[in-house]
């Protein structure tokens, strides 16, 4: 809500940004530091040009995004299906939920060594890892949402002798939708994080994470900073898209 009010850019916000950039430029030009560590700003812009033109920056970016979305699609759909199952069946929930709750305590990135040993360091490993990152929040929120269906509506459905599929489509899913979308939104953010992490550790193949690590190994600060900016920008856009989609899909609630 505050975001819309502050949408208009306040010039004061630019002051520290300009100061920071000026300090950067000054340090770079002072000759006190190696220009590979603190490259001048125009060098950074030039780098963007050469990276795009020659070294397939866009190719790396595309590879990361495709990887991200494939893993996300896999993990989130499994999460929704699993969440509906656990949400609707007390038996399934009692059987599986405790194990799931134990496993999700393990910090996400601690899975990487195990996944790398099981699936190699190629594409399969990365997608499995991204899917794992997307699966957990989707499942949790889908269970939550499915259980939030109003008991009265469920009774009405029973009175009308709805079949299982009708119950699911007409009663449970609409009730669960807001929560499912929250889960999917969170999953989208998590999978982008996981994509970068996977690329850090499994450096085979193109990707933004690979680019950043390469920049560090070669002491090319410019390349690393460029990669960071891209991580932030893509994360920001994914977040925006998810929020817009959420608002759109939930418009019927307020209408």
């Amino acid at each position, binding site marked *: 809500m*505050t975001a819309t009010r*502050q949408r208009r*850019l306040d010039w*004061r*916000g630019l002051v*520290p*940004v300009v100061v920071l950039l000026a300090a950067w430029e000054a340090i770079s030009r002072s000759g006190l530091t190696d220009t590979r*560590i603190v490259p001048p700003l125009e060098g950074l812009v030039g780098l963007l040009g050469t990276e795009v033109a020659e070294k397939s920056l866009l190719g790396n970016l595309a590879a990361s995004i495709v990887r991200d979305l494939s893993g996300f699609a896999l993990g989130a759909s499994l999460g929704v299906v699993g969440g509906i199952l656990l949400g609707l069946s*007390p*038996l399934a*929930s*009692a*059987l*599986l*939920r*405790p*194990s799931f*709750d134990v*496993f999700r*305590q*393990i*910090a996400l*990135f*601690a*899975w*990487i*060594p*195990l996944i*790398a*040993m099981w699936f190699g360091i190629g594409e399969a490993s990365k997608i499995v890892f991204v899917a794992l990152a997307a699966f957990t*929040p989707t499942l*949790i*929120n889908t*269970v*939550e949402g499915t*259980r939030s269906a109003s008991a009265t509506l469920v009774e009405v459905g029973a009175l009308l002798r709805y079949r299982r599929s009708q119950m699911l489509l007409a009663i449970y899913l609409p009730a669960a939708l807001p*929560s499912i979308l*929250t889960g999917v*939104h*969170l999953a989208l*953010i998590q999978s982008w*994080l996981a994509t*970068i*992490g996977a690329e*850090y*550790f499994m450096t085979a193949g193109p990707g933004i994470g690979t680019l*950043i690590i390469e920049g*560090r190994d070669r*002491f090319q*600060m410019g390349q*690393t900073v460029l*990669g*960071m*900016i891209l*991580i*932030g*920008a893509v*994360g920001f856009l994914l977040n925006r898209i*998810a*929020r817009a989609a959420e608002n759109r899909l939930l418009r019927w609630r307020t209408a």
Partner: protein
Amino acid sequence: MATISVPDRPTRARGIQFAPPVRLIGIGLLVPLLGLAAWTVGARQGWVPPQILPAPQVVWDTFLELWQSGDLLANTLISLQRVLFGFAAGASLGLLLGTAMGLSRPFEAYASVLFTSLAQVPALGWIPLAMLLVGIGESLKLIIVAVGTLVPVAWNTRAGIRAVPSGWFEAASLWRYSRAQVVWHIVLPATVPQIFVGLRYGLGHAWLALVVVELLASSEGLGYLLVWGRQMFQLDVVIATMAVIGAIGFALDAALAAIERRLQRWQVASP
């Protein structure tokens, strides 16, 4: 980044709300027990090679061995120390920044663009840059853990202060409260719950960031133990370490949750 600190909140309370009927609780053990049995038999019959999945007995023995040799404890203590120092630094900075942005509109006008842009890059993204700037020593871990903590803490603190009804501030100015009194008597009590939400996310992010940075660049700590196990093709070490990481992650969150509950009780007591 703001949204990261919002969504998985419903997960917290769920265990209480939807506890399965008592007779069903026992069967939650069924799946792990069956899994363990299949794992044991599979390993014994040689269905899966030990490089892919070592037998449970081997993992357990490795765990005991690591424990008795003191390696596990030493590495755990190092990781815990790093996460607590980094968290303390990040949380203090985050609280300061969040409070300043929440209380002072001009400060927020100056700081928010820079803060919001920097907050878009997750802690993970800062690691290579920080490695270039400070090397791979102890300060790297501290910085990354602090960055992971700072963003959710600052964000939630600011949001908490913004949510204080403006009438309360008006009342305070009628009573001629000083700025310190406003913060102490009005802002702080009203924002404690939201600050705790931020702290909890902060600690979660701190732990996650620590594991990543230890995996990437460390010669001690639990993350290093994972990398070492993998390099030696000793999955038993990897799995035992994962279990410890899970247990600590759970304990850290449970500790903050307990403090949070205490504070909320206090809040209800003195409205």
